C-alpha cells in the first residue's frame, strides 16, 4: 500500500459522504460476489445456498445481494466498490482470485466487513478469511475408495496444482492406502475448473485404463455421468454439491461444501455487534464439510467404517494427516502420532509417499 492509493481511498470515502451508510439503520445488508454462474451446480451454487440460508435465518432483518460470474482482477474490484458504496455491511468474496482486490477495497471502506474465501491475506482489520477443510471429506471418500476398488486403481481428476487440491490428493490416497495397501492412485490434471466435456474425457481415459473409483476436484457431474456408463463397475463421488441425481450408483457418497453455518454466524455477529476479524478454517466439527448420504452400493461394514471416521473427525478426535507419513521421496514428514500443522497444510505443495508422478509446476 503506498501513499497515493491511500489518499485515493480517503478521497473516495469522503466523496461518498453520508450516502453509503445511510442504510445502517435499516436491515443489515450481506453481499456475495461469485466467480461462476449460480447455475454451475457446484462451487458457486453452494455459496449461493449459504447466502439463501442467511436470508432464511434472519428474514426481514437482512437484505442479501449477489453478483455472479465476476471475473477476478479489475472487474471484481469495481463490483466490490459498488457493493460497498451501495451500503453492504458485510461482503463475502468467494474465490481465491479476489484476494488482492478484497484487501484493496477494504482499505477504502474501513466500516464494511470483508470476508474472503480460501485466501491468506488480511491486510486490514476489516478483512477476515475463511476456508473449509475439504481434505477431511477426502479422507472419508478415500477410505470408501480403498475398499470399493476391485482393480486397485483409483483416480483423481485434478484442476490446478494449488494447495487445496494437493491436500485432497494426499488425503484421498493416504486413506485409501490405509485400508488397501495395494491401491494405486492415478492423477489426471485437466488444467481447468470447469469444462464438462474435458472432465468426461478425463474420466473416460481413466476408466479405459482400469480405474474403477473416480473422484473429481472439478465442478461438473460429467465424471459421474461417464462412470454411470459402466453399469455399476465404476463408482464415484459427488463434489461440492450432493449430485443426488446419480444415486445410488455411481455416486456412492459426496463431499458437500456447506457454507451456510459460517455465513449465518458471521452475518449474525455483524448484527449483534460481536463481529471480530478471524482466519477461519472450519471442517466437519463446524458442519462446513458434510458427507452426503452413503448409498446402499457401499457394503454395510465399509459404510460403518466411514461413518466412524466422520464421527471421529466431527468430534475432533482424528486428524486426516496424522503420522507416520513420509513425503514422496521417502523423507519423513510426520512422525508417529504427529499431526500436520495448518501452516504446512495451507501451503502444501508435495505428494506423500506412494503417489507416482510429480506435482506439475
Amino acid at each position, binding site marked *: 500500500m503506498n501513499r*497515493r492509493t491511500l489518499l485515493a481511498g480517503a478521497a473516495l470515502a469522503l466523496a461518498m459522504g453520508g450516502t453509503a451508510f445511510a442504510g445502517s439503520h435499516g436491515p443489515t445488508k450481506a453481499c456475495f460476489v461469485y466467480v461462476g454462474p449460480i447455475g454451475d451446480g457446484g462451487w458457486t451454487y453452494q455459496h449461493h445456498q449459504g447466502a439463501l440460508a442467511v436470508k432464511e435465518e434472519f428474514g426481514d432483518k437482512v437484505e442479501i445481494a449477489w453478483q455472479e460470474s465476476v471475473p477476478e482482477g479489475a472487474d471484481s474490484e469495481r463490483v466490490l466498490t459498488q457493493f460497498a458504496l*451501495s451500503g453492504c455491511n458485510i461482503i463475502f468474496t468467494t474465490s481465491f482470485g479476489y484476494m488482492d482486490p478484497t484487501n484493496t477495497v477494504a482499505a477504502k471502506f474501513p466500516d464494511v466487513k470483508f470476508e474472503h474465501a480460501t485466501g491468506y491475506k488480511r491486510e486490514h482489520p476489516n478483512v477476515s478469511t475463511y476456508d473449509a477443510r475439504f481434505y477431511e471429506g477426502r479422507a472419508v471418500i478415500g477410505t470408501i475408495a480403498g475398499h470399493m476398488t476391485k482393480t486397485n486403481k483409483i483416480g483423481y481428476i485434478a484442476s*490446478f496444482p494449488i494447495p487445496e487440491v494437493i491436500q485432497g490428493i494426499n488425503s484421498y490416497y493416504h486413506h485409501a492406502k490405509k485400508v488397501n495397501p495395494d491401491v494405486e492412485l492415478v492423477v489426471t490434471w485437466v488444467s481447468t475448473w470447469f469444462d464438462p466435456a474435458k472432465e468426461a474425457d478425463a474420466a473416460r481415459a481413466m476408466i479405459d485404463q482400469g480405474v474403477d473409483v473416480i473422484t473429481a476436484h472439478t465442478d461438473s457431474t460429467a465424471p459421474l455421468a461417464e462412470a454411470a456408463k459402466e453399469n455399476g463397475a465404476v463408482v464415484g463421488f459427488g463434489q461440492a454439491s450432493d449430485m443426488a441425481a446419480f444415486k445410488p450408483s455411481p455416486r456412492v457418497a459426496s463431499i458437500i461444501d456447506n457454507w451456510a453455518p459460517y455465513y449465518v454466524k458471521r452475518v449474525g455477529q455483524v448484527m449483534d455487534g460481536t463481529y471480530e476479524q478471524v482466519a477461519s478454517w472450519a471442517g466437519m466439527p463446524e458442519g462446513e464439510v458434510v458427507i452426503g448420504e452413503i448409498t446402499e452400493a457401499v457394503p454395510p461394514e465399509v459404510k460403518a467404517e466411514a461413518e466412524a471416521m466422520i464421527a471421529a473427525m466431527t468430534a475432533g478426535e482424528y486428524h486426516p494427516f496424522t503420522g507416520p507419513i513420509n513425503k514422496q521421496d521417502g523423507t519423513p514428514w510426520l512422525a508417529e502420532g504427529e499431526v500436520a500443522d495448518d501452516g504446512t497444510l495451507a*501451503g502444501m505443495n508435495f505428494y506423500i509417499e506412494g503417489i507416482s508422478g510429480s506435482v506439475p509446476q
Partner: protein
Amino acid sequence: MIRLEKRPQPSQFWTAFTPVLAVMLTMVAGGILFAILGKDPFVAIKTIFWDPILGDFAFYYRSQLLVKGAPLILIAIGLSLGFRAGIWNIGAEGQYIIGAICGAAVGLAFYPMEARWLIFPLMILAGALGGFLWAMIPAILKTRFNTNEILVSLLLVYVAEQILASMALGPLRNPEGSGFPGSRNLRQYEAASNQELIANSGVHWGVIAAFIAVILAYVLLNRHMLGFQIRLTGQSPRAARFAGVRPNLLVVFCLGASGALAGLAGMFEVAGPAGQISIDFNVGYGFTAIIVAFLGRLHPVGILLAGLLMALTYIGGEAAQATLGLPAAAIQAFQGMLLFFLLAVDVLSNYRVRIGTTEAA
C-alpha cells in the same frame, strides 16, 4: 415492396443517428425481457444506462468507464486497421495475454529494485513486443505458407491461455504466496505499477495510450500513404496491387500493429487494474474488442465511442445485477440485443430504403 438502394456515400445523418436509434430499440426489447423476468423494466434500464453516468455513485463509475473502456479501445483500434484491409486478426485475446506476461515478467525480474524511470518503460516495450511477436506467428505463416490467419490467430489464443496458466503456476508465481498460483501484485511494487495518474479519475497510462492510439490511427488513415493503402486494399485488392501495394508487407504491418496494441493493453492491465498474472487473468477483452471495432464502424472516433458504450453496458449491467438481482445471463442477452440492433440499423447509413413498386430487381 421494400427495397434497399445503395447510397453513393454513407449518410452523415444516419451514421450519427443510428446508434441512438439502436440504443432506443434495445431499451424497448430489453425492457420486455426484464419485464418477463419480473423486474421493473424502467428501473432496470435506468440502472444500466443512467446511473453509471449521472446516478448517486457516478463519481466512481465514470472513472470505471475509462478503466473498462481503455483496453477495449486500444485493442479495437489495432484490429480496425487490419479489418479495413481484409486481414482478420481474431486472436487479439492471445496477444493481450502474451503482452501481459512479457510486461509482468520484465517488471518482476527487477523486483525489488526501485528505478521506475527504467523499469516501467521497459515493461511497456516488453508488453508491446510480446503482443507483436505473438501476432507475427500468424503473419509469417500467412506470408510464407499462405496459412489462414483467422484460424491461426484464434488457435493461438488457446495456446496463450495455457502458457498463462503455466506462468501463473510456475516461473512467475509469487515466491511469498504460500504455494498459491499467481504472481506478485505489481500494484504493490511502485516501480512497476501502472497507477492512476489523477486520483479517482480512472486515468492510468493505458487510458492515455488508448487516446494516443485513436489520434494516431486517425492521422494514419487520413493523412498517410500507408493508411491509403490499407483502405484501398480493403475496397479493391486488385486495384491495390496495381497501385503498388505489397500485400505481404501490409499483412505484417496490420497484424503486427494490432498485436502490439493488444500486448500493450495486456501490459497496462496487468500492471494496473488487474495487478497480477493469474490463471484467469484474461476476461475476453480481445474478443469484445472485435465487436467494438465493428460497432465503431472501423473508424477511430467511432471506436472510442463504441468502447465507452460497451464499458457502460458492463458497468451498468453489474449495477443492475447487484441492485435488482437480475441474473448475469440476462445482462449478457441484453448486450447481445444491443449489438444486434446496432448492426441491423447500420443498414440505414449505407442504403436508402425505398418503398414502392420496383423495376426488375
